[in-house]
């Protein structure tokens, strides 16, 4: 292992690997440390949605749009493996009159901010996605939205970074960071010490632990989402479908927040068992995701919980997801679940 580097990146997820790749254009002396493997945690287990519709105007939206363009260049010129990128548009479906009202408010407001959203009625929804339930009243649709395979994308960035000269060490855990006069001196790992004056914290849901090592409070905490995967079943859906995060007794104001993906959050570490969105039942902390994959398995989710880094799945959560999926895509009821 290298004992000295210009930059040490902590984290083998999407942030660490993208940064490593772009850094490799400026230095041949960057190091990336991954506690487990590449994309072993959240970057390998998410829906891979590169969406504009969920973004907030300003920086957030600009970045999302830039990425949508950038991926095309990366796929054509940089990546040596397929990342299953597909620009098929993104759809958020709704079932009730309250949700429709909220969707209308959010669509109008985002349209005025330059996000090309469309409010679709039931017939238009089924024209795009014939298998969806008759119960669906409509959807918010954005034709710019794309999806990809997050695990393969992270791995592709890591390979491109390695090709550019970045040294990547997996199974390498950061134990502490040495500082002197407010500057970083070195990073101590389970495989020895690496001297560097620049350390990049790309540890995702462990970012706050890395921050603690140098006395920085970083309010990023793990948020547990559960999903299951079905057996392979082709041609059910053309694109990833999501619902809004709205609980059963939502007011219009809360429903608007649910559709616009804005929420007031505390900078304090959540306590274990605290409900992220709506106090009380797990059923009110769910959100529908159904993602058809290139391999024809369908990934379905999710519930939201604050339970630290626990990665086990629970019976209660899987039953709630299944109920949501059946309601949205009745045809899936006879399909087998193979993994959670």
């Amino acid at each position, binding site marked *: 292992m290298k004992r000295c580097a210009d930059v040490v990146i902590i984290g083998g997820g999407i942030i660490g690997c993208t940064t490593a790749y772009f850094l490799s254009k400026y230095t041949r002396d960057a190091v990336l440390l991954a506690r487990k493997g590449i994309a072993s945690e959240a970057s390998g287990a998410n829906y891979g949605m590169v969406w504009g519709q969920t973004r907030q105007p300003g920086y957030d939206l600009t970045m999302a749009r830039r990425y949508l363009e950038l991926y095309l260049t990366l796929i054509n010129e940089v990546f040596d493996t397929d990342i299953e990128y597909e620009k098929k548009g993104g759809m958020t479906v709704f079932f009730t009159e309250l949700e429709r009202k909220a969707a209308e408010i959010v669509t109008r407001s985002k349209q005025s901010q330059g996000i090309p959203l469309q409010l679709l009625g039931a017939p238009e929804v089924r024209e795009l996605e014939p298998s969806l339930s008759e119960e669906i009243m409509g959807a918010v649709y954005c034709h710019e939205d794309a999806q990809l395979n997050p695990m393969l994308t992270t791995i592709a960035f890591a390979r491109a970074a390695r090709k550019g000269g970045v040294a990547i060490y997996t199974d390498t855990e950061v134990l502490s960071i040495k500082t002197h006069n407010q500057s970083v001196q070195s990073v101590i790992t389970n495989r020895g010490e690496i001297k560097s004056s620049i350390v990049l914290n790309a540890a995702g849901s462990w970012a706050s632990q890395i921050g603690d090592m140098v006395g920085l409070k970083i309010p990023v905490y793990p948020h547990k989402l559960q999903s299951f995967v079905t057996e392979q079943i082709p041609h059910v859906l053309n694109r990833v479908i999501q619902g809004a995060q709205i609980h059963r007794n939502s007011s219009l104001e809360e429903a608007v927040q649910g559709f616009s993906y804005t929420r007031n959050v505390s900078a304090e570490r959540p306590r274990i068992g605290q409900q992220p969105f709506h106090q009380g039942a797990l059923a009110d902390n769910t959100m529908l995701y159904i993602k058809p994959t290139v391999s024809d398995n369908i990934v379905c989710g999710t519930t939201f919980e604050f339970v630290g880094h626990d990665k086990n799945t629970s*019976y209660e959560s899987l*039953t709630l997801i299944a*109920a949501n999926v059946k309601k949205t895509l009745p045809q899936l009821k*006879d399909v087998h679940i193979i*993994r959670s």
Partner: protein
Amino acid sequence: MERKAQTSEEKDIILCRCEEVIQKTIEEAIGKGGDTLDSVKRSTRAGMGLCQGRTCQRLVAKILRDKTGKPLEALTPPASRPPFRPIKLDLLAQEGNKTEERE
């Protein structure tokens, strides 16, 4: 017609029957730096199918041992989670509806 038995030299033996992954693909993944059961699974899909690696995991582990020199005990299997046999989505959905009513 009688099929000719394949020799291991031919390397096109299917190891993961669910995802139809051949031995050569596994060996290539290891050659590209995959040195854990999880990373080989992630890059080849071996073990991601209906049986979730019940058949192929041991075979992949042996190839990993031979190629990397790691002992079998050091090769930790990827996390295994429910269901332990494929189950119909509807079974869970009916329970989910009851849970929602209760809550």
